[in-house]
């Protein structure tokens, strides 16, 4: 498992068991995930490259991953279009954003 720490991809697991494999750089937009995966921290997440996000449901985590990629894509652009956030999810996404520090 030790070689996973240098892998370019990490796995995010939702509370209901959905797994999302996403590039490390995109996931590190979130301060919480960045600290989880920091190799210096010796957290089990950092060693295995697998983050269990118990507070997020699969639906929300999917949207969060979509945001990670959206942020990655538009990082250096000016005049960024707004990502579409469904109104019924926006309060849950606010909680997720607070938890993930993003």
């Amino acid at each position, binding site marked *: 498992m030790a070689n996973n720490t240098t892998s370019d991809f990490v796995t995010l697991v939702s509370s209901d068991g959905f797994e999302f494999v996403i590039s490390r750089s995109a996931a590190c937009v979130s301060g919480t995930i960045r600290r989880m995966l920091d190799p210096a921290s010796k957290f089990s997440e950092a060693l295995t490259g697998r983050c269990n996000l118990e507070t997020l449901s699969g639906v929300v985590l999917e949207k969060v991953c979509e945001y990670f990629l959206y*942020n990655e894509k538009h990082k250096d652009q000016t005049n960024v279009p707004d990502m579409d956030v469904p109104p*019924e999810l926006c309060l849950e*996404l*606010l909680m997720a*954003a607070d938890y993930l520090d993003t």
Partner: protein
Amino acid sequence: MDNEIPLPPPRRLRHRSSSRAGPSPAPSVAPSFHKSRRLSRFDDRSSQPSSDPALFSSDDIPASGLENYNAPVAGGPGRKRRYRGTWWGEQAVDPKRKRADFKEKRHVDSGVWMGSDESLAESSLPSEDGPAWGEDLLKSVLDPQGQGRFPLESSTLRAPTPVQAQSRPIPVFIKDGESEEHRIAKAIVNNCLEKGEDSIDLGNLNLKSIGPGLLAPLQHLTKLPSVTEPPTSENAYTSLQPFLRIFLPNNNLTNLGSELFELKDLKVLSVRSNKLTMLPANIRNLTSLQVLNIAVNELTSLPWELLGLLQGELKHFSIYPNPFPSIEETIVAVWRHGSSQEGEPSIDEVLKFNEYEGEPPSDAWTAIRVATGSVNRLDMDGRPVQPSSSHSANHAPSLRELSLRTLVKMPGLDQITEEELLDFPPLAVPLIAMAQKWHADGGWHCSVCHKEYVNPRSQWTEWWDCTPHENGMKRPRTSGEKLRPLPFSRFGCSWACVPDS
């Protein structure tokens, strides 16, 4: 044949009951009429022309209404035949006709459907489910509570979708606790509206806020002509375009609400001697404002959007006294004015307008940017942060910002009561409060990229000198005049939206 009625049979006959008592000329006439109708060349149904056929005097038309106009009728010789009703259902006046006919006429479809007419509703609605629709409508009108309450469950975090929000009956707020000042203010506004007075004086009323619905009707103010006697010259006529003036001096206003800034025709606004600590950015909507008095308030900075008004119509701008910080005491990042000189200019040199002779140059009339303050970068909660290398300038909004932008656009947000707020998760409460404030201010826009934002990420102060507009008539700066820059605060929506260096 002369007795016959020339025009098509009256339609109302169809609705008459056959058991009608009393003789009437109409039923007896009808069959013979049909006979002659078949003979008439006017009714060749196989090839009906779009217009009336030509009429010749030589034509043998026994039933021409025009020629028989004065012809005697059965009722008696010498009497004119009188007609009643429309041309298509014309009917000779029956002398024995009684007003009792009126009741029978009511069975005829008038084409007007009223909510109380149930039987008519069924027959007049075209579609199959028409009656059901009408009943549903009636039910919902009578019993709005039956439609269900606003679905806000405490157990789930799910926000109401727009569809659900729309199905909620809009409650009518009746404020019994409306304060005395508001009632007086409303009476003054109503009086002005009625008299067509375009100068609204709400001064010295001890108003603490501008209540909802107070100023919005002024959008529709119509000025009345003020000429009392015939004028001697044309100059005596005045414009009926309202020159809208609102005076709110000597009140206790701490904010101005959003209604005031929807009056796009407002020409004069005075909020002298109030307790305002900031002006909202949507003051930019008042594009026809000519006079603005914000003296004697607690303002420490002005919205940057106000500069747009200074370039437009605004001529009289009374600013002092207000507790603005002095430029000498603040940290200035970049000097924009007077930097052409060699070396580091002293502050007195910077704050001196160019010396000129003769005609004042064009920049003597306009606002001048003197300096730009340092940029405060804010984190996602609006707290200032030290810019670190890991946080590069990123135009992409944060996930929190994206969700907030969706949240503030949700309908029904203003109608969440304090009790309902208790059911929300504690984290969401300040966010909803912020969204409500966002609505009250009419939305916030990034001053660099003009996008809507909810949480500002950068803030800085620009120092502009507006001396030509200050205090009374607009005039040019004199040669070598000392500048008195004012702080205008600007907000950016991301850390990349910062002043150009």
